[in-house]
C-alpha cells in the first residue's frame, strides 16, 4: 500500500547557516582575499620596480615585500572600517562591545605594524639605490682633493 506523501512544510533550517556551510564560506572568503592580495601586490610591486628603473635583485626583493605589506595593510584597514561600522551599530548594546573592541584593537595593532614595516622596507630600497649611486665607479675615486 502506498502511503500518501506527507505535506510539504518549509524547512526551518533551510536558510540558516550550518557549521559546514559557514566553514565553506570562510574558506571561500580566505581564498578570495588571498587571490586578490596576490594580484594587487604583483601589480604594486611591478609599478614600484618600474619606478626604480629595474633595480637589482636585492632591491627588487625588498620592493616586492614592501608591496605585499602595503596591500595587507590596505586589507586590514578595510576590515577595520567594517568592524568600526558594527561597533557604531552596537553602541546601544554594551554587553556585546568587549569582543568587538578587542578585535578592533588587534586590527589597529596589526595595521600599524604592517604600515611601519612597509615604510622601513621602502626606506631600505631607497638606501640601497642611493648607496649604489654613491658607489658608482664612473664617479671620481673614494677620496679626492678638492682644495
Amino acid at each position: 500500500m502506498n502511503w500518501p506523501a506527507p505535506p510539504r512544510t518549509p524547512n526551518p533550517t533551510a536558510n540558516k547557516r550550518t557549521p559546514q556551510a559557514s566553514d565553506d564560506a570562510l574558506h571561500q572568503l580566505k581564498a578570495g582575499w588571498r587571490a586578490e592580495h596576490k594580484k594587487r601586490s604583483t601589480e604594486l610591486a611591478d609599478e614600484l620596480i618600474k619606478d626604480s628603473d629595474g633595480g637589482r635583485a636585492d632591491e627588487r626583493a625588498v620592493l616586492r615585500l614592501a608591496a605585499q605589506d602595503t596591500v595587507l595593510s590596505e586589507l586590514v584597514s578595510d576590515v577595520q572600517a567594517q568592524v568600526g561600522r558594527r561597533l557604531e551599530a552596537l553602541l546601544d548594546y554594551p554587553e556585546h562591545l568587549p569582543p568587538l573592541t578587542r578585535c578592533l584593537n588587534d586590527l589597529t595593532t596589526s595595521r600599524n605594524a604592517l604600515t611601519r614595516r612597509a615604510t622601513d622596507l621602502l626606506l631600505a630600497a631607497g638606501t640601497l639605490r642611493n648607496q649604489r649611486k654613491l658607489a658608482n665607479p664612473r664617479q671620481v675615486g673614494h677620496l679626492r682633493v678638492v682644495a
Partner: protein
Amino acid sequence: MTRFEARSLRPGEVRLADFLPLADDVVAIAVTALDKDGIVVTGSVEFALKWASTGWQRQFACPICLLPCRTIGIHDGFFACQRCMPRRTAHQRRKNQSNWVGNDAVVDRIVRALTKLGSANRQPQCIKAATRQLASRSISMVDALLSSVVHICKELDNVIEEDLSNFIPDPP
C-alpha cells in the same frame, strides 16, 4: 693644508676607519654620506687630537662638542657624535612590542643585512628565502586575524538582527 672630499656608504654614520690612512696635511673632509633613512647629506668634518696610550691620534672632531670620536652619526641632516646624540637601535626601541617577536625583527634583520657594507651580505638567494618566509608568515597572520574577525562579526550580526527584530512592529 689640504681639503678632501669623501663618500661614506654606511647609512646613518661616518667612520674614521673607512678613510684611513690619512695624509698628515688633511685638515678637514667634506663628506657625502647617507642619513639613517638613506637620504644623501653633505657636511664637513674636522679633526681633533686624542692621546692614545702611545701617542697622539687624529680622530674626527664632533661639530657640536668638538671632542674627538671615531664615528660620527648623522641625525636629521646634521652630524653629531654618539655622546651628543645617542641613538637607540630598532631592537632597543621596539623589543617589547608584540609584533617585534614575529615579523618586525626579521624585517629589521633583512634591512640591516642589505644595507650593511660588503658584497657577502647581499646574497640574493638568502634574501629571497627570507622574504618568501616572511611573506607567508604575514599572510597567515592576517588570515588568522581575519578568521577571528569574521567569526565575531557573524555572531554579532545575528545579535543585531535578533535584537532589532524585537523592535520592529508587526505588520497590520
